[in-house]
């Protein structure tokens, strides 16, 4: 039986990204929770800007957190550097602060620049971060079409109704 999954240190990761001046938008379960979703979530997912300067800041910030590809066998020659970030797009990582999803694009949502106008700023864990807005969060979850998201979409839509 696999070991119990441990939730990421959401605050630690967000504070590190802000301290590193990384441009990012929080999406996924943590964004849902910021809006009021009442569901467990284990990792922090962010959409990051793909500009060369932001990739460098991302590497400088996340590099010291021992990032490694989640689910990959140990010992792979994975290097978390700007060149690899440019070659790839979405990275599911383990770090010393827990699981971190670095997303260059969201299915049906686009990249950082596409999402920026539908994001909102809020303070959490002592720092101000951008979170994807509730309506867009619902739209991208719907667009992803993953069966595992159906319950979360229902709850997000109920949340939207309750908010009025």
């Amino acid at each position, binding site marked *: 039986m696999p070991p119990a999954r441990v939730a990421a240190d959401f605050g630690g990761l967000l504070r590190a990204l802000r301290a590193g001046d990384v441009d990012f938008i929080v999406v996924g379960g943590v964004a849902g929770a910021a809006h009021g979703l009442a569901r467990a979530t284990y990792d922090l997912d962010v959409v990051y800007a793909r500009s060369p300067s932001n990739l460098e800041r991302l590497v400088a910030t996340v590099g010291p957190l021992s990032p490694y590809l989640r689910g990959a066998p140990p010992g792979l020659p994975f290097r978390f550097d700007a060149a690899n970030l440019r070659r790839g797009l979405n990275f599911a990582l383990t770090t010393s602060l827990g699981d971190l999803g670095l997303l260059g694009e969201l299915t049906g949502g686009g990249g950082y620049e596409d999402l920026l106008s539908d994001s909102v700023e809020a303070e959490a864990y002592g720092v101000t971060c951008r979170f994807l807005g509730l309506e867009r969060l619902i739209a991208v979850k719907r667009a992803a079409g993953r069966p595992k998201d159906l319950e979360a979409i229902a709850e997000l839509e109920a*949340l939207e109704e309750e908010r009025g």
Partner: protein
Amino acid sequence: MRQAPSRPRGPEPDPVIEAYKKHVDRTLLRENLKLTPGERLEKLAAFMRSLREVQGAAGPGRR
């Protein structure tokens, strides 16, 4: 939380999602809506810590 500019409504209601929606505990959502985003995320972190403790009490390897 200040909301992003409103966009036209998305797709029509999905019958599967509507079915799930009937089982959503809205009392939890209403309680969360009384909090700030920061308070909601503190609550999430506390909930995940307590979940971990329960998993630990259940024994190694349990989920």
